[in-house]
């Protein structure tokens, strides 16, 4: 439990808590609330051998893999859905054997996080038996129900060293407001040793409490105000996801050389996130915040 009354730090300090080979849970999912500013900063700091876990992810994992920061990937999905397709760097690394794929499934990850939250040494799951998931997870075991005799799979607790979570709003205590879907972020907070959070905006606690605290500050070790810290993912109610930028990334990531060029152009910037936002430009960013003006405006972001 983190009881300091002020957790505000800068992004470099926040990211520096994460060490090489840390077990890192990534908040959000797919195109929503990905902790992209932290991902970019970890790459800037040259972090290696990360073991990443989570549900269905996309550019956060792919960018870390492209930068050579990942050793083990235990997400349930990494990709860009039907729209932009397979995750190029992740696919290349998995096929080339340069990362270890320990793909998992949502209920299994959820159950392992629940075991961590409850301080239990195992929990049972169904639904793996008979599939090939067990081939990826020799660490699971079997357990027999003492009441029914049913054979179930036992999974150990999953205790991430760090959960990296982006929220639209937070306060100095690290209290975070999220919009639905929370995905696994609440469970990550309860199961992890530490939450490192970025927020688009830090507001007074009273203001935050009116909106509702989704993740309480006592789980949070450090909080950083990073406007557009989830870009190009969305951070509603502040901004929609930037489909054009993601598409640009997916194209770039399709070869090692162009992926390297993307990293040089968009990540390894001397001024970090300030430079990143400057490079994106205020008008394109303002456009992403315009989603609530009308249905046509919103829809227009995705054409």
């Amino acid at each position: 439990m983190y009881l300091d009354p002020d957790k505000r730090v800068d992004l470099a300090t926040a990211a520096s808590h994460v060490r090489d080979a840390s077990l890192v849970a990534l908040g959000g999912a797919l195109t929503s609330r990905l902790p992209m500013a932290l991902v970019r900063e970890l790459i800037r700091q040259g972090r290696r051998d990360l073991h990443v876990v989570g549900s269905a992810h996309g550019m956060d994992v792919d960018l870390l893999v492209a930068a050579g920061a990942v050793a083990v990937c235990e997400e349930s999905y990494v990709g860009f859905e039907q729209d932009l397709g397979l995750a190029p760097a992740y696919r290349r690394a998995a096929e080339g054997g340069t990362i270890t794929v320990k793909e998992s499934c949502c209920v299994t990850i959820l159950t392992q996080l629940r075991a961590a939250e409850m301080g239990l040494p195992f929990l049972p799951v169904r639904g793996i038996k008979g599939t090939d998931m067990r081939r990826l997870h020799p660490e699971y075991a079997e357990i027999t129900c003492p009441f029914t005799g049913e054979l179930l799979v036992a999974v150990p607790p999953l205790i991430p060293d760090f959960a990296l979570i982006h929220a639209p709003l937070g306060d100095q205590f690290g209290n975070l407001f999220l919009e639905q879907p929370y995905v696994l972020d609440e469970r990550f907070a309860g199961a992890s040793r530490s939450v490192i959070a970025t927020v688009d905006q830090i507001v007074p606690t009273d203001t935050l409490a009116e909106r509702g605290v989704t993740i309480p500050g006592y789980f949070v070790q450090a909080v950083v105000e990073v406007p557009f810290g989830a870009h190009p993912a969305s951070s509603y109610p502040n901004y929609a996801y930037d489909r054009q930028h993601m598409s640009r990334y997916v194209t770039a990531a399709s070869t090692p050389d162009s992926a390297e060029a993307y990293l040089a152009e968009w990540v390894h910037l001397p001024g970090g996130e300030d430079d990143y936002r400057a490079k994106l430009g205020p008008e394109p960013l303002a456009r992403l915040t315009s989603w609530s003006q009308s249905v046509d405006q919103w829809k227009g972001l995705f054409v």
Partner: protein
Amino acid sequence: MSGYTFDEWFVVRLAHTITDREVVFHGFASPCAQVAMHVAKRSHAPDMMLIEGAMYAINPTPAFIPPTSNDNSLKQGAAYSMRFEEFFDAAIRGDVDRMFVSGGQIDVYGNTNVTAVGPLERPKVKLGGGGGGCNISATIRQLTLWTTRHRSGRTVVAECDFITDLGHRTPAGTRAELGYTGGGPQWLVSELGVFDYDADGRMRLRETWPDVSIEQVRAATGFEFAIAGDVHSVAAPTEAEVALVRAIDSLEVRRGEFDSRELEREFEFTTTPAR
């Protein structure tokens, strides 16, 4: 409205795998299933409970379908969104009636592979992964499978290289032997035909598209399949249904699932419009 395209018909056929008062879920990266659910909800299944994919929103009325599954536009009009764990708990305890499942490979028993083609250690193609499908395919009451890539010859195969989601039986045994309460795949809707499953859990041709011959289906399928005694043509969509598809999916996100060849398949309404 003079005619319609195959993607529209396909979505309508998928919608008809839903019966009213079912609790229905689609995963992410599934625009055809997603649009089909909204079509069903607004036509023949008004009292179904529609769980909107990666938003876990209950019965939303989105103004459009965006190209990603977890955009906030998809929860508009929903009074409630489930927590992640609330949905998955409902699915594993058996309170979800139907899920839509696809896969890079689909075998004769309806097992699907969304993990990797080729040897696991050095796959030929690393697919995206199964998301939440694996565990919950064991307990959800019925599954509707679909694929838009049957014609490739690489999708509907004798054996999956990796079983991510459960069909009617795997090398480890049948659902009954594994102790699973879910009924497994009920339908496979592909761009070449509509299949159900026989008592042994094997895929069986049940409905045909008018522009696809049974020989074409056989040529694209990695195993021998039976043909149901009552095999018949897929029922044509109504104008109202096609209009619904177009209204719900005005960005035509569904079309991203199809090869251009399939998108060129066009059909005419054969009966005089009632209006």
